[in-house]
């Protein structure tokens, strides 16, 4: 089953959280980030082109204008392909592991998979981010050498940066699954 709610991120933008409940041991959370706004795109393009025109009036070289056009196009393509993340998904399967997918605006998808054997816990952490204190959800990985240690902290939803209410929803579901997994793994 599936349900969708809207939350906001730390800057106030709108996020949509889609929860899919496949089975007691398998859940998926999908956060959609706000799209690229026309306003910011226009602003950047105008700035770059005005600067290029200013240089052109100084240097009288028309290559600057074409270079500015190329730079804008390439920059936009690069931004859409490498920077702008449209959707972030977290898929938890009880016995297999946790998979995080980020899909970019150009359609590229990058996936990270963590085996369940490596996962120690999922927690909400606080962090100081510029002048704010924000909450973020992270996965703690076990240390192979030390049984009670933590080898790595993997933050989740890094580019969407939702607020605490959204994180609590995700956290509750994840903890249910982790508890379920621990129960089934300890019982033979």
């Amino acid at each position, binding site marked *: 089953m599936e349900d969708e709610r809207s939350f906001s991120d730390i800057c106030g933008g709108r996020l949509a959280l889609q929860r899919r409940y496949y089975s007691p*041991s*398998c859940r998926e959370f999908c956060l959609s980030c706000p799209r690229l706004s026309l306003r910011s795109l226009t602003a950047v393009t105008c700035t770059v082109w005005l600067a290029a025109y200013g240089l052109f009036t100084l240097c009288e070289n028309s290559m600057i204008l074409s270079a500015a056009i190329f730079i804008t196009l390439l920059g936009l393509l690069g931004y859409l392909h490498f920077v702008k993340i449209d959707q972030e998904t977290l898929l938890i*399967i*009880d*016995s*297999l592991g946790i998979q995080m997918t980020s899909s970019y605006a150009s359609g590229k998808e990058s996936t990270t998979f963590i*085996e*369940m*054997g*490596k996962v120690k816990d999922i927690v909400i952490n606080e962090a100081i981010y510029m002048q704010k204190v924000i909450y973020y959800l992270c996965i703690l990985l076990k240390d192979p050498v030390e049984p009670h240690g933590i080898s790595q902290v993997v933050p989740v939803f890094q580019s969407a940066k939702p607020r605490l209410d959204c994180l609590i929803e995700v956290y509750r579901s994840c903890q249910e699954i982790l508890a379920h997994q621990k129960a089934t793994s300890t019982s033979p």
Partner: protein
Amino acid sequence: MVLKAFFPTCCVSADSGLLVGRWVPEQSSAVVLAVLHFPFIPIQVKQLLAQVRQASQVGVAVLGTWCHCRQEPEESLGRFLESLGAVFPHEPWLRLCRERGGTFWSCEATRRQAPTAPGAPGEDQVMLIFYDQRQVLLSQLHLPTVLPDRQAGATTASTGVLAAVFDTVARSEVLFRSDRFDEGPVRLSHWQSEGVEASILAELARRASGPICLLLASLLSLVSAVSACRVFKLWPLSFLGSKLSTCEQLRHRLEHLTLIFSTRKAENPAQLTRKANTVASVLLDVALGLMLLSWLHGRSRIGHLADALVPVADHVAEELQHLLQWLMGAPAGLKMNRALDQVLGRFFLYHIHLWISYIHLMSPFVEHILWHVGLSACLGLTVALSLLSDIIALLTFHIYCFYVYGARLYCLKIHGLSSLWRLFRGKKWNVLRQRVDSCSYDLDQLFIGTLLFTILLFLLPTTALYYLVFTLLRLLVVAVQGLIHLLVDLINSLPLYSLGLRLCRPYRLADKPTALQPRGAHLPPPQLWLPPQALLGRPVPQAVPWGAHLPLEAERGQAGLRELLARPAPPHGHGQPSALPGWHQLSWRVSRALWTLLCAPEHRRPCYHTLGLEVIGSEQMWGWPARLAALHHWHCLPWDPLPTCCGHHGGEHSSPRCPEHCPMPTLRTQVQRVRPPQQPQVEVALPWLWGWRDLPRMNPPSPRHPLAPSAEQHPASGGLKQSLTPVPSGPGPSLPEPHGVYLRTFPAEVAL
């Protein structure tokens, strides 16, 4: 209970049949390896499975049925499939069904013992997971079979589901050998059923490689035996061999070729990657060399080059003469001591005159030499570049000589000054106690000493200026040579095969999960250290000023060293690693070289001529003059003995670097010493000096170096001793007893 079924993507469009695979009870997962199609004879199927089980030690069995039909299976088919469950008994029995042309899948798992009433806790939920068989096999993420607690076909619970899947698929290669063109009793569908993957060329190459490798290996062993004979160890040849970078590069390449053509198969993927990288680098080298050869020998370019060479040398000599005339006058407005100035200037001018005459003597032969050098490019571009670097070294030999003279003079002066300064203050160096003691001099001693001190002091600016000028010139030459050597090292160590794999077949380069990594107190072998950022092997910083050339870092099992970029730690001591671009590194090296030239350790100590470790006696550390007093340049002269480092080679080395594990703290052994963390102090101290990139289990060093000489007085030893804690003898037992002060080697830091 959730049952995981791993299904290969290649069987998704296969016809109906039986599911053949392995059941892993600990993780309640079923790994489907292939689909066996109708019609079949059950006896033959069982025979085949028994054969596969025996050959591969994997518990292959029939797991269930696979149904790929147009709509819901008819009654008769359904009953037939159920009856198959009786023929091939297996718990639990999987039933996968897919609608042809549609997206409807149905998966069921039934157990015989528990009643299959719906809703009962005995009913299993099936999680279907698709995996790409080809990529799983080729990614080589397999459990190594050398783990001590392995049993045939068993996996421990700690290894995890995915490791079990990979392991199963990998070891069932026997099953994948038959394709649909084979006339066997059964028809299987798996990743190779459309035709076993192979290429004729690869097969031919494999067949031919045996005898070729044998032949070439014997040839190469002959060559290396010849080169290891005693003649080359005698003094002139061994010395030349160590100084010329061409010989070094040739030796290097010989090692590479021996590795490539060795008749031993590579045991693990890391060694195979190594071999492949070496092959790629050799091929690239030879290709570039041949291109250079064709360019050089076409259109008589060699003639032009030869014609241009002698005038260039003349021009350089003329510029040097102008420089000396300038120094003999009033350079930069400074007033020199006229007599000393004239003497030094004339001395150097005479040398230049000699040099020009030698060049003119050699000029008829230049073209022939260049032609032969150009021929050597067919051995590889690296050899040609090393030859170029050697030619530059030979052509600028006079600059080297000037540097040596200036340095010697300066060194003598500084020693004299320091000793006489001590006399002036009424102190003396006590050789027995290795410290400064007070001493009562006679009046005439004091008088003459003070006189000489004054003379030397007022002659200091002249000598210092000559020294500075020639050192800068020498640094220029060394920088050019360094660039060439950088290029050579780049070609030598760029892992082209891995790069190509990463671009074209990224699944082959999957990293080893932690369950498969070797664990334990021993160190992982260097090639497993590859951090992804450092794909370009950077050479470890060499001792730039010491020696007439920059020795190439041999790659003998030191791949781990290559990945450690030497970066200067920022002056305020953050341990955060950051990669520097290449030119930053070079300028850093040059400035570091300058720094070490001006502030080298005291000459009485055994000297560690590497760019990091500088042991300065504590009593010397009061300000710049004392540091200047501790200069040592003995090793810049060709006839000086190389630093003897250890006893187990009888003290003789053909190269200043000790290849074996040697207590002398050369660059390499420092690495080997630091790694097993013995004392935290050493670990924290050394990153400051070497600029580690990232040590695996290191906390970032504290911002203030704990052994930094701070200005407070040490209560136990009076006088002007700085507060020092002797560093424990981590880097080597051959260090003298703890004066060990490790100074940070940044110009900004040393102002005391």
